[in-house]
Structures are given as C-alpha cells and as structure tokens.
C-alpha cells in the first residue's frame, strides 16, 4: 500500500538489475543507513551498543558468511565456530607481531588466512555431500578449537591461555582494547558489515552467485553446462570462511575484548546455523534478521523475568530459557520454514498488490 510502482519503468539493464529496483525500497534503505550511522551512535547507550548492537553486527557478518556457503552454494557446514576462531587468533598473532600494521588491514588479512583454512576443509566437499559433509565440517570445528587450545604459540603462551585485544588506533581513534569507546567499536563493526553485505549481494547476483545456486539446485546439470564443481565449491568455502574469519576477529577485538577457545565452541556454529535458517537460507536480508533474532532472544529471555517481576533460581531460569529457545525455534520452523526473510517477502508482495489479495 506504500508502494507506488506505476511509472517506475526501466530503460536500461543497469537500472533493471539494481539492488533495489523499487524507488520506495531505496528510500527505506537510505533511511535505515542514516539511522544506523548517525542516530544510533548518538542515542544508544553503552549497554545497548555492547550487549546488543555490536554482537548483532558480529553475528550478522558470520551469518552472511555461512549463508553464502549453505544458503547459496548448498554446502551444509557446522565449522563456523572453528573458522571464526581462525580469524580471531590470526588477528591476534598478526597484530601482536606487527603492532604498527593498521588493525583494519589485519582484520582483512586474517580473513584471508581463514579463507585458506576454509578451502582446505572444503576439499572433501567434492566427494562428501549433505549431512555427511556437515559432520565432516565438525572435524574442522573440533580440530581447530583443539589446536588453538593446545598449541601455546597461538596465544603467545599466555598463562591464562586467553587472547586479549591490544589497544589499537585508527586515524587517532582508539577502536580496540579496554579504552576503546563503544561507539567507535560499533561504527567500525557497522562499516565492516555494510561493506560485507554489499559485496555479498554483488557476488550472489553475479556469475559466481549463479554458479553457487546452480550447484545447490542441481550439481550434475551445473557441471554439464560448464560450471567446474570443485573450483566453485571451494570459492564458496573461501569466501564464506573469509566472512566468518573477519567476524571472529571482530568478535574478540570489537566485542568481547578477550576470550579463550571456549568462545568458539560448537555452540557458536549451531547458533549461526540457526540464524541463517530462522532468517532465511539464500537471503542476504535473512542473515541480518536471523542474527538479530538469535542475539536478541536470549537477552529478552534473561530480562523477561525481572521485567515481569518474577525472581527465580539462576539455573531454573537457564533451563527455562533453553526450553523456550528450543520451542521458539521449532515454532518458527513450523510457521515459516523459509525463514523471516520469506515472511518479509510475502508481506511486501501483499503491500505491492494492495488492496488486492494476490
């Protein structure tokens, strides 16, 4: 009903293939960007930035990565946590080795490192498919975490066995380490996510994205029309891992500040998988919706009792949370197996057709 598409005709392929071909959508996006970059840093307080927005951004990035691999290329992976760990530890090693190096560059470098590792663990995907592959990726998950846990070199033999984000500046602004302001860290994370999302969108609407989807939908046909399977699958693993790697780096350096391998255990892999499935497989938007949903829900659940004014034992509450969390997941899968993105899409179609039902 807000859509007024009459007269928005396309006179060139460029405009026809724009990311947001509908004017109203473009305006909405611009509004969102302004809110995210200008309004939020001004109004949001420490708690919101630290406990809600930054984690949401970090996980959006990871979800984007996994969605490229699982949602678009159809390769089910449970190794996300492991790959995030690679990114985090790579950043730690590089930035402690070369303190002068701009931390943003370091993030990207560690992304590349992760991409390499991702490719390595992607190789079996040519022979192993579906759930078998999923289980195989668990190998990456466990092995990597074990590795960073066991081999002291990775955490510079710190007695605590943890890695801690050293203070680093960009253009004179402290963005990591204890003194870094939440706003600064938020904006850096936001910038990364924005660029990443744009790049992801560009990839999936281009040749590579089509190759991925082709393989996802029917790999045999894909190969016969000239799409090299291994190469394409590995490209998916590489890019996906790059995203997860950077996400892992941001997780430690912009959010937690310090952590040990526990932060990257199998649970993280599952959380991210939840995000893309609840959000919507094969949808950039879905990655964000899912990430927001999964990061916000526990917070809601934890705070709900206080809000309502019930007090209960910690572990009772923990148990209730896990029950409700699980229940909600099942509920969502039943209501809309194709995720929040699909819900939004349906709603949007209705608005465009308004007042008609179809």
């Amino acid at each position, binding site marked *: *009903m807000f859509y*007024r598409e009459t007269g928005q005709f396309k*006179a060139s*392929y460029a405009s026809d293939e724009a990311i947001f071909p509908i004017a109203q959508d473009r305006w909405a996006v611009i509004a969102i960007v302004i809110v995210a970059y200008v309004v939020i840093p001004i109004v949001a307080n420490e708690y919101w930035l630290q406990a809600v927005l930054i984690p949401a951004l970090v996980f959006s990035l990871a979800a984007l990565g996994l969605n490229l691999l699982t949602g678009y290329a159809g390769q089910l992976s449970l190794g996300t946590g492991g790959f995030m760990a690679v990114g985090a530890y790579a950043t730690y090693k590089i930035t402690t080795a070369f303190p002068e190096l701009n931390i943003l560059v370091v993030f990207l470098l560690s992304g590349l490192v992760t991409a390499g590792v991702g490719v390595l663990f992607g190789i079996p995907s040519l022979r192993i498919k579906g759930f078998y592959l999923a289980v195989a990726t668990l190998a990456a998950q466990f092995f990597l975490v074990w590795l960073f846990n066991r081999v002291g070199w990775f955490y510079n033999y710190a007695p605590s066995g943890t890695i801690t984000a050293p203070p680093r500046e960009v253009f004179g602004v402290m963005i990591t380490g204890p003194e870094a302001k939440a706003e600064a860290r938020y904006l850096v994370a936001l910038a990364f996510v924005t660029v990443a999302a744009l790049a992801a969108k560009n990839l999936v609407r281009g040749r590579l994205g089509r190759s991925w989807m082709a393989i996802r939908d029917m790999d045999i046909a894909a190969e016969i029309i000239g799409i090299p399977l291994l190469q394409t699958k590995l490209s998916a693993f590489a890019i996906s891992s790059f995203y997860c790697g950077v996400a892992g780096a941001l997780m430690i350096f912009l959010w937690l500040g310090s952590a040990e391998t526990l932060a990257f255990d199998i649970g993280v892999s599952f959380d991210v998988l939840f995000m893309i499935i609840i959000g919507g497989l094969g949808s950039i938007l879905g990655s964000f919706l899912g990430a927001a949903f999964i990061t916000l829900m526990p917070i809601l659940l934890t705070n709900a009792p206080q809000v309502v004014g019930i007090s209960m034992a910690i572990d009772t509450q923990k148990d209730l949370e896990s029950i409700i969390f699980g229940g909600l997941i099942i509920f969502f899968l039943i209501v809309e197996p194709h995720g929040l993105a699909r819900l939004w899409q349906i709603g949007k179609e209705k608005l465009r057709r308004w*007042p*008609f039902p179809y």
Partner: protein
Amino acid sequence: MAKPDESLAREDTFPKLLLKNARVRGDRVAYREKDFGIWQSWTWAEVLDEVRALTCGLAALGVERGDTVTIVGDNRPQLYWAFAAIQSLGAVPVPLYQDSGADEMQYVLEHGEVRFAVVEDQEQTDKLLSIMDRCPKLEAIVYEEPRGMRGYTQAFLHEFKAVQEEGRKLDAARPEFFLDEIAKGKGEDLAIIAYTSGTTGDPKGVMLSFDNLVESARLSVEFEHLTEKEEVLSYMPMAWIGDHFFSYAQALYAGFAVNCPESSATVMTDLNEIGPTYYFAPPAVFENILTNVMIRMEDAGWLKRKMFHYFIAVAGRVGIDILERRAVPVVERLRYWLGRYLVYEPLKNTLGFTRIRVAYTAGAPMGPEVFRFYRSLGFNLKQLYGQTECCAYCCIQPDGDVRPDTVGPPAPGCEIRIDEQTGEVLYKSPGTFIGYFKNPEATAQTKDEEGWVHTGDAGIRTDDGHLKIIDRAKDVGKLTDGTLFAPQYIENKLKFFPQIKEAVVHGNQRDRVTAFINIDLDAVGNWAERRGLSYTSYTDLAGREEVYELIRENVEAVNRDLARDSELSSSQIRRFLILHKELDADDGELTRTRKVRRRIIADRYEELIEALYSDRDQIVVEAQVTFEDGRQGVIKADLKISEAETFEPLRKAG
C-alpha cells in the same frame, strides 16, 4: 536557399513538426518500446536521424511524391517513423489493420493503388506475399523484424535496417535532399488515407490533409493542455484513426512520448510500468477492468473487503464532487482523503492509472455506474464522439462538465446540427476530411455542399447543448405521436443492469413502447439463490413473480431516466415481458456479434408483440429452440406480461 526555410518554418506538416521537436526538445524521449526486457528509448533527435535515413532509403527504393504506401503491423516506433518518412517524400501512408486477412488487404492495396509496403514482420510479409500476384501495383515490401526472414530470397523484400543504410548513403551524397523534400510539403497536401471498414459495402478511403490533422491536433492539445511531458501507451491498432491522432498527430504536435508495448499479451503490465498520463480505451476495457477488480477483491480477507467496499461507497457519494471541485462536507472529505490513501491510490496504482490526467472512452455507450466508478476515484475519464471523417472527434466533454450519458458539447472549432426529419447528427469541423479516395459519389452523400458531414448516427441535444448519441440513424423510428423512437438507446439503458442480458424494445409506428427482456441467468441466478429462490431452468426462473418484480424496478429506473429527456420522455416502456428463452445466435435471433436481428425477432415473436399491445396479461407460447446437441425442439410456457410505471417529463421540451 531561402524558400525551403520559410516553408519549413510554417510547421504545417508532420515532417516539419518532427524537425521542430528535434530542434526544441532534441534530447527528450520521443518513443519507447518494451523490447529485450527494457524500454528501449529514442530521443527526438535520434528519431529525426532514423526518419531521415528511412526517408532517403525509401526514395532510393523509388517511392515518389503522390505514391501510396501501406503500413501494417503492431504498434512499433519504426512503423510510426515510416509515417513521417513517407510523408516527408510527399507520398501518402495507407495504414492497414494488422489482423485483417489477406483478402481484405488485397482490396485496399488494389483500390489504394499501393506501390510499396512497410510491414512489421514475417507474418505480415507472408500475408502480402500470398496476394502479391493479385496486386500488380505492389512493387516492394520493407520488413522491420528480420526474425525468420532468412530464407526469403525475393528481390523485392528489403529489411528495414538495410533500407535505412541505403538511405544514409544517399543522404551523405545529397545532404540537402531530405530537407528539400520536406519543404515541398504543404498543409493542404494529403497526409493519410485511412480506410474505414464501413458496416455495409467495401471499405472507403478517408482522405485527410495535414491541415485537417495538424489543426485538430492543435485545438485538442490546447483544449486538454497537453504538454511535452505526457506519456501515452500506444496499443490500439495503428490503422485506427484514434491511434493515429493520439500517438502520431498529437504526439508530434505537443512533442510527448509514445510508448509501444512489448506484445498484445503484455499490454496490462506495460501499462503499469509506463503509467501513462493520457490514455484511451474503449468502454469494454474499462468494464472488464472493473469486473476483474471486483472479482479479485472477493478473494480478499473479510476485513480488507469491508474496508474496500466502505471506501468505494464513500467515493461513490462524494468522489465525483471532489474531482469536480464542488463543496463537500468536511467529514466526507476526511473519509475520502483516508480512502484515497488506503484504497483509491493503491488501486489506481496496481492498475497503472496513477499518473493519468486525462482518459477518454468512446465508440460505444458506457454503463453509467462503471463511468461513475472511475471518476469517483479521481480518475478523469471522459467520453467523446467522433469518426475517421473528422480526424478522431468533434464532440468532447470538458473538465468540470462530464456526464455518463452524453458525449459532451461540440469540440472547439466544431459545429453540431441535428437534422430535423431524420434526427441525424451533422457536424462541421476543421478536421473535416477532403473526401473518399476515388469515390466522389460516396463523398457527395456524406458531405453536403455547405460542408456538413452526415454521421449516420441519430442523436439529440440536451437542453444545455450536450450531444447524446442514441442510435444508428437508420434504426431510429417514430412513435405515432411523432416523437423520436430509438430502440438501441433504450435497450442499452436496460442492458446496463447486470440482471438484463438482452432487451428488444418495440414502438416504431405505434402509440407506446414495449419491451422483451432476457434475464442474465448468472446474475439473476445468484440473486435467486441468495434469497433462497429455487428454480429448475431459465424458463422457470424467467417466469417467477419475484423476478418480474426485480426487472420491473430496472425498467422503471430506465423510464425515470427517459423522462428527463424532453425528446425521449414518451419512449418510456409501458409494458414488458420476460422471454421464456434466451435469444440465441444459433436460432438466428442475434448476429454473431450479439446484435439483435429485429426483423427476425419481429416475425418469430409476432404474437407476443401483439399481446404486449393488447390488454392481456398472460399468453401461452410455443417456441422453436435448438438444443446444445443441435436437435430442434419446441417449448411451451405461458408468459406473464407486466405493466411498468411511467413518469412525467421533468422538463418540457423548449
């Protein structure tokens, strides 16, 4: 060289207007065509270039001043350019309907002495090829779409692009040629021969001069304040004068953009994408759209449906007043404003009507409630009246004075007169055609010496000067009291009611008017079910007292309406009956196009008609029917005859 320049400066032909547009708005888009998934666009400057090349190319092919060149195909920019190119050379375009069969084409090609043809594609080419041998004058065919033409090796077939290439060569060699040729053109020259498929006899070639078209275009553009910003969607046949006027004459005069749909199948979506500001469609189209809207809304959730109907009702109450800037209570205004946001605008938008400033309908009477529906949404729909002989129209409804039942007062520059004896509508207008091509006697019959054109339509002037078309003149009769009797007009009024499918009114040379009614089985059937009225067959339902009640209300509504017209008030329907069977083309009672065959009905149902004029209120009938399987059969029924109330004329004739 001075002379051509001042000729060009006169801007009295379309080629000259094209030059002007290229000069004053060279980089505004002139034509768009949905092709290869996007709207391919050409600016006026580009169009001029294309036309220039085509003109020279045609000249190279041997097209000469005074030749006639046919143009056949769906609406394509290239074909519109062909008009301009042909006219640039002083030759005369003779557009043909793209769906006409080879034989129809043959007549025009022969009679029009056509030497060249510019066609859209293989399909049209094949049609021409199949009659080539019977049209000795036809020398060459230029086809626009090469698809599938690869195998065609005939020397007289030329691809559009190739012709333009030749043209560019010639143009390079003789750069002055193009402008000189255009400069030779004069306003009084023949601009187009538009063949009209007359209801009787062979098509007649209406000869229109540049002065006719350019002047009419000027008047109409000023009348509607059309600017270069307009967008039109050209989807009506190019051979129809209406399209030629809106998409060619006016477009060139006002310099606005003409948009050609991808294919006839995608017109609706293309309409939605372009969102024209200026639009024409025959009543049937508007009626179908409305029905679709209503059907689609039935599937909506009840809340949405309620809301929709509520606001449509609001619009029905005040929409038109608001559109025509009359006083409306604030509350209603608020409701309407809300409705505009929730329903009207979104609805118009999904239909592609959002940007429409002016929309016309013509060619057939339009149901008043359909007409009101569109206007009540703030959709400026108007009716006009015209024909090929006057370049499109001679009557049109001005903004602020629009009514469902008239075609408006005479258009600027036009005069209207009603012939006292026949009731026929006569007009004079700047667009009045030169004459019929090679057919002086027909010309003489149609256009009398002081220039009045006989339309063949019977009409009346409302007391404030609007024209009402009521029937074909030849069908109009008289009642014994000497007043006009226009059966079709009354029948149409009846048929506007969904419950009435067909109607036949009698009264010529009689003292009063009576009617046969065919109920619409679907509409009345639903109505019956809703009120738990069970029936076994059409005949059964048609005989029900309740149904008679229903129909009587409709008939009396028509009577009330007729009473308003001083001339028609005595044609109110006194008695009517509902026929026991549906009038059927298979029984020869209707033409295939569902027009009633009065003569046949008159003698087949003679006794019923007599009964209507007697004072009996019952009559037994036996009727021949042809069943689905073709068997003949007889059905017996006794029919009620019902009286209908009539009303006093509201205004006395004065």
